[in-house]
């Protein structure tokens, strides 16, 4: 694997440089420093993501505190089973990503690829179910804007719930889409044998990203789907 691994540099960004044990970048003294730097960089990046989603969560919490009834009524139009299935799908995908990271540590090339592809498949299943839900909301005139219709005590604020629902799940789905692309990329590099037990930083970092996106959903699911669930007959 040594000869071909130095050809990774045509892919832009950090991914390429960290795929090869031989691609020690010029600014680092050794691979250990390079690995620590990229891991720290990923964590700092995830902190910025927490703040990005944190802004949306703040808007949600304030509006829900101000208009609890409108939010409750609006939440009853969520598809509980779709959200629940998606939660399970994502947790399973995170498991596969964790297994892929473990396989990278052990140096089992085929296992890395297998687990990554399973995670990728589950990511696509999640997006498919999400798309199905969006379609349902469209048909039921629950997409905010001029066509929005809602029968309830406080339709204007129920519309705010749906605005937040679409923005939060929309940004989450965008992150899922990026995650699917990243997982596909590292699966390809893993197949080409670019990762060694000593150096497989890209797998670790993409794993961190995937778990983060998963955790965001773990918060979104109860806030959007479960606040009214016991009221459903």
């Amino acid at each position, binding site marked *: 694997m040594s000869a071909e691994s130095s050809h990774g540099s045509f892919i832009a960004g950090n991914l390429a440089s960290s795929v090869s044990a031989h691609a020690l970048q010029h600014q680092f003294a050794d691979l250990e420093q390079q690995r620590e*730097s990229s891991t*720290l960089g990923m964590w700092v990046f995830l902190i910025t*993501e927490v703040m*990005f989603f944190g*802004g949306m969560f703040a808007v949600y919490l304030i*509006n829900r505190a101000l208009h609890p009834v409108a939010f409750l009524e609006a939440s009853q139009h969520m598809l509980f089973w779709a959200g629940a299935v998606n939660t399970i799908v994502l947790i399973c995908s995170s498991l596969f990503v964790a297994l892929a990271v473990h396989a990278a540590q052990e140096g089992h090339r085929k296992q890395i690829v297998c687990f990554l592809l399973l995670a990728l498949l589950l990511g696509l299943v999640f997006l498919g179910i999400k798309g199905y839900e969006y379609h349902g909301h469209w048909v039921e005139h629950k997409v905010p804007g001029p066509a929005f219709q809602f029968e309830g005590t406080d339709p204007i604020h129920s519309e705010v719930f749906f605005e937040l629902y679409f923005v939060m799940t929309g940004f989450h789905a965008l992150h899922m889409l990026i995650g699917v692309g990243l997982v596909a990329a590292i699966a390809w590099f893993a197949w080409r044998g670019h990762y060694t037990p000593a150096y497989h930083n890209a797998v670790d970092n993409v794993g961190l990203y995937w778990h983060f996106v998963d955790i965001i959903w773990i918060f979104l699911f109860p806030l959007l789907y479960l606040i009214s669930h016991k009221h459903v007959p």
Partner: protein
Amino acid sequence: MATATQVVEKENYLNVNYGIKSWLLTTDHKRIGLLYLFTITMFFFLGGFFALLIRLELLTPSGDMVQTDIYNRLFTMHGIVMIFLFLIPSIPAVFGNFFIPMMIGARDMAFPKINLLSWYLLLGGGALILYSIVTGGTDTGWTFYAPFSTQYSNSQVIAAALGIFVAGFSSILTGLNFIVTIHRMRAPGLTWVRLPLFIWSNYATAIIQVLGTPVLAITLALVFLERVFHIGFFNAQLGGDPLLFQHLFWFYSHPAVYIMILPSMGVISEVIPCFARKRIFGYAFVAMSSIAIAVFGFLVWAHHMFVSGMSVYAALVFSLLSYAVAVPSAVKVFNWTATMYKGSIHLRTPMLYALGFIGLFTMGGMTGLFLACLGIDVHVTDTYFVVAHFHYIMVGGAVMGYMAALHFWWPKITGKMYSEVWGKVAAVIIFLGFNLTFFPLFVAGYMGMPRRYHVYAPEFQVLNVFSTAGASILGIGYLLPLIYLFWSLRYGKPAGDNPWSAAGLEWTAASPPPTHNFEETPVVTWEAYNYHELPDMPEEDAGVSRI
């Protein structure tokens, strides 16, 4: 066979290769710093052009040069360009990029490609904002208050907001790069307590960039969605909450003030020990006060909203916390002053700017306490008192620090000395012009002249004539360095590696530095600012002083 010229000119980051591609695709932190320098200098003069038009209009009480609508766009574009395209990137992106790796003995930033990407993001954001300018401008003020920005304004809100969104990611990635670089790339022996204070202040800045800017990003994204799809997060008519916008906006935009001022404070902490030939007084306090400012800075945003309608108890807490920011700021000022006490002071150009910084920043900070006081704030909200206050911080503070950095490190960046005489002349002109521009505005504002109007009551005219005269002087002061610094590139004397006999690893490298900065990785065994161990600064060279 080596020719004579090759022997004279050593290989450095400027002459290692040539051509437009070697610059546009560079991952060398020093070249990226210069790319930023050219870019934000252009934005600075663009923003200055808008300021000039504003001051010309305000020469007379009546609206005789532009009408309301144009005037709204002028001050909005002045604010957006100056804040997001000049002040936020300014010192971190130019001098932080250039000198953080050198000061910590590293070969480059931790993520050189991401570093280049952040310059392109600034260009992209700048392009969108330029597009909004040439297609008519934005008239919401740089604050984008909803629902005016999301529903009623007929100007280019979307392009400007998107531009700031994109430029924000440039800032985030710069901060991320700084944090990782400072944590992981320090030379052997360079412990945290041996770091130059410029590193500490840029580290504190990076924390704010990383934590604050994503909140601005999502806020502007919501404004964008609200305006495009006619939905209402912030529009009360559609069930939204306008106050929520202000909270989210200021959650970033107040800490953003510290993104602008903290790096300047770092520069001053470098310049004053060097030109007083003494170790900084109270190193640990100066370092920790930067972190304290970054932390407190996140807890004071609502002091921009004392008249927007919030509970009196919330206002009390935010008022108290705003006072608290004055403590670490004052710690810095006292320590700089104590550093100069009994020092052997060399009044060279960077030192003049540093002294100007201390005076003007103190004025700006003290008037900030007026504004943190609930009673006075109600009286002066939305008057020129506020305008004068934040210009004392942002121009008197941040830009003075930027100019100090430019003159302090110019010999290292270019290998050439500028004219010391012209440098001093410009520094004095800028100091005088600045005060003449903005001090009268304190008075006008306290007497009740409201901001953001192109007409005003005739009794304010004297003060406004002073201000406009000062702005013209200030403009000349800013044009002068453009001339003599470019002049020095061709005619300046060679600077030598350490023209100020300054401490710090960056001065141990050649001027201009080679691409890899150091021949071999330095090992640090000394504290920062060990001026008692260094030879005194060379006297001003008469030949350098001549034009």
